[in-house]
């Protein structure tokens, strides 16, 4: 057997190992219900329930932030995040949480939020325009 063939086989073996390791390391997207039935960390996509209270009081604990999120199936759950409240959280349109259930709370280790921050949002501000109308 040629040396290059042996090396080729080694490379293929490593490539397969990489794929397997990625597959076994990869998490899944799920709902709060799925989270209740597993002890693994998973990703949950949903949105913030803006009616309920966002709790962050730095003077009591700078590393405790809790809120209520509805997952894509409509189920709501209290979420606790160890850390400070991400900037502009109230405006988030979509949230992706990584974490697991602890009792009735979902403990998130990571929050990724998609904000329609005004820098990407196609909304013309016409507040100024209205104020101006009077002077015409």
């Amino acid at each position: 057997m040629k040396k290059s063939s042996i090396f080729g086989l080694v490379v293929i073996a490593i490539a397969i190992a990489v794929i397997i390791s990625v597959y076994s390391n990869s998490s899944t997207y799920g709902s709060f219900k799925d989270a209740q039935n597993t002890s693994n960390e998973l990703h949950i996509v949903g949105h913030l329930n803006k009616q309920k209270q966002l709790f962050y009081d730095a003077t009591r604990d700078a590393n405790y932030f809790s809120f209520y999120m509805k997952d894509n199936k409509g189920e709501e759950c209290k979420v606790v995040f160890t850390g400070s409240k991400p900037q502009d959280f109230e405006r988030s349109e979509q949230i992706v949480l990584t974490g697991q259930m602890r009792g009735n709370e979902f403990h998130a280790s990571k929050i990724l939020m998609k904000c329609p921050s005004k820098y990407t949002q196609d909304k013309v501000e016409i507040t100024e325009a209205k104020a101006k109308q009077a002077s015409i």
Partner: protein
Amino acid sequence: MDTAFKGEHLLPGHLGQFFTILAFGSALFAAISYYFATTNPLDTSWKRLGRLGAYINTIAVIGIGVCLYYIILNHLFEYYYAWEHSSRALPTHYIISSFWDGQEGSFWLWTFWQAVLGNILIWKAKSWENPVMAVVSLSQAILATMLIGVDIFGQRIGTSPFILLREAIDLKANAPAFAANPALYHNYLTYIKDGNGMNPLLQNYWMVIHPPTLFLGFASMIVPFAYAIAGLWQKRYKEWIKPAIPYSLFAMMILGTGIIMGAFWAYDSLSFGGFWAWDPVENASIIPWLILVGAVHVMIVYKNTSHSYITATILVLMSFVLVLYASFLTRSGVLGDTSVHAFTDAGMFWHLVADVVIFLVLAVVMLAIRWKELPRTTKDEETYSREFWMFVGSVFLGLSCFHLVVVSSIPVWNLMFGTKLAPPSDPVKHYNIVQASFAVVVTLLTGFTQFLKYKKTDGAKFFISTLVYLLVAGLITLPIVYFTGANKLKFVFILIMVGAIYSILANGKVLIDAFKGKLKLAGSAVAHIGFGLIMVGALISAGTSKVISENTTGEQFSDDFAKSKNNPRENIILYKNKPVVMGKYTVTYIGDSVAPPNHYFKVNYRVIDANGKVTEEFLLKPNAQANAKMGLIASPDTKHYLFSDLYTHVNMSNAIEIGEGGEAAGHDEADEDKKYEAPLTYEVAVGDTIRFREGYATLTSIGRVDHLQDIALTGKDVAIGARIHIVANSKTYDAEPIYMIRNSNAFDFARKVEDAGLKLRFTKVLPQKGKVEITLYQQPESAKKWIVMRAIQFPDINFLWAGTIIMVIGILLSIFRRNKELKTT
């Protein structure tokens, strides 16, 4: 139609739009002309036409840039791009960078650099000009389609930067007043006073230079690709590699610099808390780079030994296809759920897919057609030869890249196969471990390959020198790992350390030899040393970075919560003027300095030795912008030492609203008093001391006051002041509350000491006792100014930056060397 709206400047837009069409047409024309110039080499008129096309394309591309600059600089907000990405308040250098804030601008950068490179090729490529420029022009034409923005069969092709605001956004839906009143709509521009401005996070000098560098890197990847295609096309299999090597090195240098600039930007002024987070967008930029590095090494192997031709070709072809794939990943919106900073979909998904597919098909077809004719060597490489191990190293770089592609593309797999995979839940750990394994192999290879010669090496001699150096590397690693605390890391990271130090030593030897005469070898040695240092710096700083702001004191939210330590409690609250000990530092938030729109928090760091003496003191000023649109935008401040960095970042504060809200002082007494705890009254004589939570106050004297700033005193009034000396948090203040009698009515004027959170009133005079009554209001902790901050220590990160500079110098030396070789042969 156009005259229907008042105040619009349509000329620059029309001109710009004309230039985008011209850029596309001329690039296509150049591509076709160069194609025929290649197939009819005897007819030079095709070549002249091709050049003409390329020149016109260059002018058109510059024209697009000038028009867009004109629009942005003159704040013509009738154009969507200017409105969306700039504003009047932006300083000039950020206006320049707002140019590439959006997708269109970054495409323009790319096409601009590609045009520049095209002109260099026309000038330098000689016999390669026709086929190489045919490929470059094709790429240029496809890039131009991204900017055209015209509707064909109801499908918009590309997005033009010259779209008008009223075309991009339904103004009538946004503002009902416009829909109701046509006259108002006709004047709509008078209501668009300002643009959206640039995201404050991007208002940074890195934004000015990072994107142009990165896109020069991406753009220059086309050149080796074009040479490879040209070589296959013209059957000049063996010749293309030599002229392509300097261009590949150039692309490798520029793209590498661009990537590290991004890392430095993230580290220095974004609040990511590190220099690399394995975000899919970051990965997308490093994927083509890794393959290119592999390609360069195999090309050099081929040049020296005629081995590995096919691998070299495939890697070069792949590197450019991966550039396009990376641009698809970041621009199509496919990464939406997995990345913090990918672009959102601008309706170009399939357009970007097509871009990748066109070049992929071109590469595969050219390879397939010529497959049988490609030069092969029947002889196997020697095991003890440099070429064999360089080849192995390049394949490992390819594997590392393969891993990055597989993981970063998880959303793509989901889309293709309908699966619901999510990225690893701890992606950083996953990437670190897998990539570290490849890095171990690669660093070791960059080391011991230096002891091998091309073709054949004496085995025994090689083993002795390799092992001696490996042993020394191991011995050096031990104390380094021990003293930096890296010994607590996973074993594979310690192996990288050995590998990186080994590589530095082995290449150091080559460098010493180079100074003794073999000067042309210096380039690769220096570049490898730089790479080794990057690895050392990255490893120590990322591996042993320490959050020093760990919250060990203070109120716990609940015991349950405190117990479930899913991540370290990295944020700490600092009340103004109240020192907190973090690690070896005593940290105090001492105040603010405001220079709109920036709000700097002054955080004082002191190192106090056992005798209570301050041995070191410095001030960090992490910055926050209270942005009306985005809330608090924080950027960190870092104390740089030679061997470690101290990074401080403010997450949140109540100072910024209070400070800028403007206090209606004194007017609303009842409301005002709510800010304080219940008052306490003290009967004191001169010399007496009142204790409170943070210190004490001493009544130094009582005396008549002749002037009162608030009220004009008349001769009948009696006003006396109590001079009080206050010491709070080891700072001193003086206050003089006033007691006044007018028309036999008693008044008093309170005095506040904001810093200490105190309010003092002189409420009664008690002549019988020889005392006065002082009422003391104290702010509760929570009403005082505070910041929530995070401080991280990054040891030895300077190795990373220094390594980068050294690597760039090394590659630069190599470029000079390879260029010289081109001229001498």
